[in-house]
């Protein structure tokens, strides 16, 4: 066998091995990401269950322990960022990603319901926004709308934004959509029980929110 041919054969095998290793490492990292997401969701699920249990023991719940921007809010936001990144890496059709999204949607709904009850009991006045989007390529404004809501959420900590993939097959989500009478005109918003459609710029979205009742993240005091 000619030397160059032998080297070429060996180089092909080595390159294939390197490629396979790179592929394996990439898959392992994605597996670690998915495991991290599951861990976070389990943790949040437990935290929500804990708060619900505390709330059920009504007399035992001190409103001083609850704030509009509870630690759950920041955990949910962190989870959302990771989930979005993973979905971008692995694609929406990935089964694991879809399962995690379903769980995440349920956690959001549970947090929404819990915060509604807590607000009522403790006289808090957060603003709840249910935001519905699609990432099937049929909602060009959705990415910008999401970005604007992220900005508003960070600027107004009392603004609680819950984002849902409209097309996700989750019974509780379908019920939420039905209750709020959300039509398939995305991006869609449900603010204090009223539905709005199509807005993706800051001014339009800000107009449908009672932001003047909310403190900003740069405020030196926050309402209790």
């Amino acid at each position, binding site marked *: 066998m000619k030397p160059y041919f032998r*080297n*070429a054969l060996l180089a092909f095998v080595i390159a294939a091995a*390197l490629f396979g290793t790179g592929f394996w490492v990439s898959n392992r990292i994605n597996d670690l990401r998915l495991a991290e997401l599951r861990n976070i969701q389990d943790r949040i699920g437990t935290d929500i269950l804990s708060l619900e249990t505390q709330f059920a023991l009504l007399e035992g719940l001190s409103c001083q322990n609850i704030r509009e921007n509870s630690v759950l809010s920041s955990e949910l936001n962190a989870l959302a960022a990771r989930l979005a*990144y993973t979905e971008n890496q692995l694609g929406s059709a990935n089964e694991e990603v879809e399962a995690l999204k379903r769980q995440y949607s349920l956690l959001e709904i549970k947090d929404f319901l819990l915060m509604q009850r807590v607000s009522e009991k403790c006289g808090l006045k957060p603003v709840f926004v249910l935001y519905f989007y699609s990432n099937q390529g049929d909602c060009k404004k959705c990415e910008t709308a999401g970005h604007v809501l992220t*900005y508003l959420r960070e600027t107004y900590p009392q603004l609680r934004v819950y984002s849902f993939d409209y097309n996700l097959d989750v019974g509780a989500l379908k019920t939420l959509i039905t209750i709020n009478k959300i039509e398939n005109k995305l991006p869609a918003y449900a603010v204090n029980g009223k539905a709005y459609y199509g807005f993706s710029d800051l001014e339009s979205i800000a107009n449908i929110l009672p932001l003047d009742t909310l403190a900003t993240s740069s405020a030196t005091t926050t309402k209790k």
Partner: protein
Amino acid sequence: MNGFFEFFISAFLFVGLFFEVFLLLTFFDAEAKRRRRTKPDGNFPTVAVIVPCYNEENTIARTVESLLALEYPKDKLKIVLVNDGSDDTTAQAISLYSSYANIKIIHKKNGGKYTALNAGILATESEFIAVLDADSFVSPEALKEIMAHFDHERVGAVIAALSIWNPRSFLEKLQQAEYLLAIAFRHVLSAVNGLYVTPGTLSVFRRQVFEELGTFVLAHNSEDMEIAMRMQKAGWRIVNAPHARVYTKAPGTLPKLVRQRTRWMTGLMQNGFDYRAMYGNPRYGALGMLTLPFSTFAVVGIIVVSFLTVIQTGSWLSDFIRNALAVPFSFTFHVSSFSFDWFFLPLNTVVILGALAILILFVRMCAGAILSNTKPSVGMGIVWYVPFYGLIAPVWIIRAVADVALGIRRSWR
């Protein structure tokens, strides 16, 4: 689009990795090691060095002085300076050397570099013919290092190891990094007789080659590539002398660099087309089966990857700008307290393999630096080589493809 982009990048990376691993393996082969160990053996046949000059008033003196300083028996060395109808003071500059017994000066009407080379060949009877560009200069031991590699009757040409002289500007350091790669690249290809160019910066030929195959031809202004392909087709070997140091002046501005590389790339494509029977032809060994096909794949791949990257980047940029315009400027660019989060590290197959390919590239650059005994003064050039050439190389490649497709002929200068 994303999936197609990743697929094509992955395929491109795989082939690139394969070729880089092949070069690395060949570097450690017996033949390559033997070439690295080859030393001057005291055998000094007659050599004529032909220096074609066209408007080289600024550099010709240095070139000639370096030839006069060659550590080679003066009675075995002839220097032929061919003034190809210069309209500056080149004629006067070379006339200063008319008193040297081993320097011959020829003045002729302008006819192009290949005509000057041929005039020089006809003017001598030396056993070996060397060619040297008038803006390059040689190290004193270069010629004897080269002659030591004519160790087989079928070695028809030996080429030198070319570097940029004293790189100072950022652009020069980038080119020096590229030339370090080329030193290692040519050394390795030489071990498998895979070279397809005999550069004008001190390549030495057996006279027998010109007697059998004819002298230089116009060849799309890349006669150095054409003669090499002609030699390979006729069964001659082309070898590299890794310790034969030659230095050249790098294009000092970006437009000049692009013009130079467009010419080289055009020559590669046009000569490649003329000698297309060698592509994929096992009769021509590594040259036919690897080097030539890979050079074509590289050109096509770079063009396709560049287009896809531009489209992807444009799409990303468009989304980014649209989102950035939707919120206050300060929000888009605010940096909250930095905390490293492994989760968001962009590690996928393409990134990992791309990093590996770049690492191997750096290893080859180091090999070139060690081979040529280059001091590590080009750090910035090595660091910025990939990002800069990644951006600029597609420009001259696409330009060359357009020139060939549209039949545009650009002037040498």
